[in-house]
């Protein structure tokens, strides 16, 4: 599903964010990406939906070589990926409902379906009371949940979640984890960066640990593994 061959990423300012990453994530896997702040987790994931391009090496997603992909094809590849951004990236001019609906309008879904499905996922993340609020009128955690709702609304085959529970209380976080597990159960591949030790150690999955741009550990049913 997702493959990286000797991937390096050096940002224009000279920061080596990733150095020689080789990885293979299979269809329907659930992978935690862990590591200290600034280790390269977000970069690792940005490469998967082509927000960033690798400086060196190759990335395959669903057999597409992302480096060779024509500009015109990129949107279609992205439609199979639901991204929960670390900084949410909500459209500030649109309401909560419209933000989620936007992802469906992009794939030209019929209006009725949009309404039904968007309501469904917003209820799932418990935002049914905030439908017509703008992102600036939401609390941090509420914004994060809108981002989650938007990522899952199209039932994508891959979900990339960058610290999806960073601003959520434990209870809500577990709710989100249940949703992600459910989606994973129904066939989607999930890559999730997280600092939440409790979640990683409780819901055991494959764990990829990155440190200073290098994969230092890759265990099936691993632990968070950093001692306090």
């Amino acid at each position, binding site marked *: 599903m997702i493959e990286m061959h000797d991937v390096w990423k050096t940002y224009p300012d000279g920061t080596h964010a990733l150095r020689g990453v080789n990885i293979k994530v299979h269809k329907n896997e659930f992978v935690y990406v862990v590591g200290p702040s600034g280790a390269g987790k977000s970069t690792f994931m940005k490469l998967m*939906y082509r*927000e960033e391009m690798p400086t060196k090496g190759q990335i395959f997603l669903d057999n597409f070589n992302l480096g060779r992909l024509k*500009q*015109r094809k*990129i*949107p*279609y590849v*992205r*439609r199979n*990926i639901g*991204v929960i*951004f670390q900084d949410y*990236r*909500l*459209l*500030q*001019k649109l309401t909560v409902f419209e933000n989620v609906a*936007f*992802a469906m*309008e*992009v*794939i*030209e879904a*019929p*209006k009725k379906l949009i309404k039904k499905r968007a309501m469904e996922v917003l209820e799932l993340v418990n935002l049914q009371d905030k439908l017509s609020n703008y992102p600036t009128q939401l609390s941090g955690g509420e914004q994060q949940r809108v981002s989650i709702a*938007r990522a899952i609304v199209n039932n994508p085959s891959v979900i990339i979640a960058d610290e999806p529970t960073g601003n959520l209380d434990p209870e809500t976080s577990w709710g989100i984890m249940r949703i992600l597990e459910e989606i994973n159960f129904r066939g989607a591949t999930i890559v999730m960066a997280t600092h939440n030790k409790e979640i990683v150690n409780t819901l055991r999955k494959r764990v990829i640990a990155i440190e200073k741009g290098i994969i230092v550990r890759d265990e099936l049913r691993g632990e968070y593994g950093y001692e306090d």
Partner: protein
Amino acid sequence: MKIRTFVRHIREGVKSVFRNGWMTVASISAMSVSLLILGLFMMLAINVNQFAQHLESQVEIRVFLKVNTAEEDVSRMEFDLESMPAVKNVTFVSKQQALSYLRTVFKDDQSFLDGLEGENNPLNESFTVEVKEPRDVSTVAKAIENWDQQEPKPIIERLRWGQGTVEELFRWTEIIRNVGLVFVGLLGLTSMFLIANTIKLTIIARRREISIMKLVGATNSFIRWPFFIEGIFLGVIGSMIPASALIYGYYRLTQSEQFQHFLGFVQLVDWQTIAYPLGGLLLVIGLVIGAWGSIFSVRKFLKV
């Protein structure tokens, strides 16, 4: 593109006009103000042009006949002149009329004209020839001269068409027209630049939004369409405001007797004559810059 998507683009484009409150106001007012000045200057230029045309149209050829030309030769000449295709109008001026004219010119000082009445009148009979195309006046004059000289018995003593002065007049109307044109052109270009510049700023302010849309899977055209629609709306509003203001103001001006009195013999161009081309031109500029400026500015943020 599915029809519902097209409908969606129109809806989002129109919504965007309202959602971007401040930015929309800034774009529309930049457009209105620039086009107002442009339109105002165009109105002035059109009127100056008509005035220049009026001056030019007063250019005429005087054909002085030899003394004691037979009356039948005079009639033949009149007929010949009138049948020239370039000629608009021919008027005969008798000796007596010429003298009266001199008296009006020297109205304070006409003592020296006394004693030239009747038989003693030394002035020539003449024709005043108006041409259809004032610029052709020299050509026509020379044609008349040549053609008389080929007659067995030439009857023209001399032609006058303000040689020198006419050329000077045309040089001046030409200069004024060109200066006007250059200014209208420059004003047009700068208006377009300033409007496009403003629109670009409003879109730069939305570049983050555009990049988010791309990351969520939108194609370039999906993002562009609402901007295009929005640009068209901006164009319509931003050009119809100054166009209506100008046309209404001009209408009031042409109706104002006071102003007409102030201008004296200068005649303003009809407001109907100005309204459609001016309104049309401003609308076209607004639409083109609005739509083009929007989608062009969006372009550079689509590479995400």
